[in-house]
């Protein structure tokens, strides 16, 4: 037990620097605050990303946060992070990678001027104000959580803090410091005193205690620091953190700061998604690691929080922060929640709106349950509409299951965010011409949020097994060279990589996919979205098809045809199974032929021997 007041004068500050979005607090610093406070440390959190967002315009800031491409956010703070050693004071990156920059409006020249103004005027002014407006002198430790593009902004502030307050110990952690990335950053960047490698829930409070007590850091697992000019790394903890031991994160200072800055209203409804963590790791990835996925370097073993603790946390956080929206940061929902958590949410008649990442093999009944429980937004790992490409990705689902998920999520009004990926070793042009042909049949279902060549991420099987996948070139993504000084070994620090793949399809093979998905998205922006729905009576259905605007029409099917169509509506099935279910005398081959005729009309999705009706019931909520 911590003696009362023992650490009361040992203040720590946890900082979230740009670039993370403004409409949600950082779960990383919120959780570490609670854990450290429980050991008796006075801890403050500072969402300094909010100040920067207000300074450069919140909408522009959010666009920079959401941009996937060159490290523009990291580049903006590079000069302040590494003054003399910054590699791109002349802003060559803005021309070299001009076609991949975020679209903040205006011409390229206007964008260039805007980014230069942010880098050369806003960033230094922001850091100056930040340094003066917070009682840093009280802090013994300042911790930075860094994920994706948060490194250089954090280094820039840490550098100024170390210069002004040399007594402050700077501690860095987060996904950007995992594995060999942390030690390399510690080796080359002076303003980092200590880095936490891996999960920080246990390590960070132990580090604070060791610093406060003046005991050796060698006994604290999972640290990297410079000792006598060398980087010393202590072995990581042997036991993974169990989530039932983690308390709800403390977001109070986020809300206060966001209100003070006018980002959130002080009263009434607040459009904020509260991050919750109900699981870590990936139960699918532990068995079959998807080839492109770079999450979970060492944290792949799946752990989840007990349902009764999740229920209690949801309730307490709603009452504390007056927001009913939650975003689970889990990589994948625990399947046990389908029987243990969601039914309890239904029974309690709670009015939460919850986001989850899910595996795409959910059934109609499961999606209905999710909708009833308040899971209003999901991100399934769909990634492709080709079963062959999904097999190459090791996704463990077929294209027809992906389509079925899109159908029933649409029916139950669950918003779906999903992506289309291409560029995998072993895929063929046919895999894509087939998808291009089928996409117009799916226009009544939600389109992908993005469609692109796969990004190569550190820790993914494509990276770790690059020989096996016949990668002939694997180098840090091009923009890193405009961010980090020469002394930093980018091979050890980069998370994204450029690559060439032996035998890969050329970009031209995906032109049809780009156009088809663009058309799909465009159709959903119309005032009247595409529709394919059916009304049914015993042995009789009518299907209304207006997937192409202004080209509506109705199919009427009776008797066996109606029965065949309805038998394929709930879930993917096969001709033989339908024949058995309906007790038909028609041979299986004849039924397959009829399914082919439905497919030609775009009314069914056929995937090998599996088949699925594409229309949705016109009558909702069943």
């Amino acid at each position, binding site marked *: 037990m911590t003696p009362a007041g023992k650490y009361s004068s040992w203040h720590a500050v946890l900082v979230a620097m740009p670039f993370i979005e403004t409409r949600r607090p950082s779960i990383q610093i919120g959780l570490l605050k609670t854990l450290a406070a429980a050991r008796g440390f006075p801890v403050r959190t500072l969402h300094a990303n909010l100040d920067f967002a207000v300074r450069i315009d919140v909408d522009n800031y959010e666009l920079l946060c959401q941009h996937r491409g060159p490290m523009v956010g990291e580049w903006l703070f590079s000069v302040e992070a590494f003054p003399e050693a910054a590699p791109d004071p002349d802003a060559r990156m803005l021309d070299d990678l001009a076609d991949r920059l975020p679209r903040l409006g205006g011409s390229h020249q206007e964008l260039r001027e805007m980014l230069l103004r942010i880098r050369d005027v806003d960033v230094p002014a922001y850091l100056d104000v930040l340094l003066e407006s917070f009682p840093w002198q009280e802090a013994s430790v300042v911790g930075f959580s860094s994920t994706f593009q948060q490194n250089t902004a954090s280094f820039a502030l840490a550098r100024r803090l170390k210069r002004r307050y040399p007594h402050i110990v700077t501690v860095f952690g987060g996904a950007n410091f995992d594995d060999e990335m942390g030690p390399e950053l510690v080796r080359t960047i002076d303003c980092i005193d200590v880095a936490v490698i891996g999960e920080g829930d246990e390590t960070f409070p132990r580090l604070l205690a060791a610093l406060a007590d003046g005991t050796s850091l060698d006994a604290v697992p999972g640290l990297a620091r410079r000792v006598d000019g060398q980087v010393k790394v202590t072995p990581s903890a042997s036991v993974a953190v169990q989530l039932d031991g983690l308390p709800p994160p403390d977001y109070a200072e986020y809300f206060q700061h966001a209100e003070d800055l006018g980002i959130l209203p002080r009263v009434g409804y607040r459009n904020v998604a509260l991050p919750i963590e109900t699981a870590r790791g990936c139960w699918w990835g532990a068995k079959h690691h998807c080839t492109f996925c770079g999450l979970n370097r060492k944290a792949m073993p799946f752990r989840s929080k007990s349902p009764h603790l999740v229920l209690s946390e949801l309730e307490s956080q709603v009452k504390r922060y007056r927001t009913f929206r939650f975003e689970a940061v889990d990589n994948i929902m625990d399947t046990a929640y389908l029987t243990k958590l969601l039914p309890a949410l239904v029974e309690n008649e709670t009015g939460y709106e919850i986001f989850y990442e899910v595996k795409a093999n959910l059934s109609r009944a499961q999606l209905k349950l999710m909708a009833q429980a308040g899971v209003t937004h999901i991100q399934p790992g769909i990634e492709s509409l080709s079963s062959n490409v999904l097999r190459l990705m090791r996704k463990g689902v077929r294209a027809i299951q992906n389509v079925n998920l899109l159908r029933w999520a649409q029916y139950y009004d669950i918003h779906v965010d999903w992506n289309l990926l291409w560029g995998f070793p072993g895929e063929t042009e046919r895999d894509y011409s087939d998808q291009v042909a089928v996409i117009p049949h799916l226009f009544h279902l939600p389109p992908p949020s993005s469609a692109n060549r796969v990004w190569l991420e550190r820790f993914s099987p494509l990276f770790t097994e690059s020989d096996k996948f016949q990668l002939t070139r694997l180098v840090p993504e091009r923009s890193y060279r405009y961010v980090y000084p020469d002394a930093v070994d980018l091979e050890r620090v980069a998370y994204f990589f450029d690559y060439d793949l032996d035998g890969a399809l050329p970009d031209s093979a995906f032109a049809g996919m780009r156009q088809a998905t663009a058309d799909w998205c465009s159709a959903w922006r119309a005032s009247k979205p595409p529709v394919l729905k059916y009304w049914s009576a015993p042995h009789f259905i009518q299907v209304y098809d207006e997937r192409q605007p202004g080209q509506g029409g*109705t199919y009427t099917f009776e*008797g066996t045809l109606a029965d065949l169509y309805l038998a394929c509506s709930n879930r993917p099935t096969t001709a033989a199974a339908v024949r058995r279910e309906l*007790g*038909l005398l028609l041979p299986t081959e004849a039924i397959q032929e009829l399914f082919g005729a439905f497919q030609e009309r775009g009314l069914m999705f056929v995937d090998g021997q599996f088949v699925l009706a594409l229309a949705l019931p016109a009558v909702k909520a069943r």
Partner: protein
Amino acid sequence: MANLTFTLKEIEDLAHKVSALDQFLSKKEHELLLAIFASAAEQVTRNKAGRGVFPAPQQGAGSATLEDLQQQLLKAYIPGNEPPHGINAKIIGDVSGS
């Protein structure tokens, strides 16, 4: 026609009797009989009491041929935009307040 349930013994008795016909069947007829049994076996399920169940043929399903159904498919589509749906409630009485 209701589902047809049966026991293992009933099937064994039937098989015994049918086997008596075997000597009168050509090789082709023998193969045909086996194929019919095999096809029928695909439709059998087991109920909670452990009995076999043949599903009852659907009404009308037996008479539909592939050609009939293909013809129905060819004629199934009628172009035209969706008629308005929903209940158009009429306002009864004077709501103008005058």
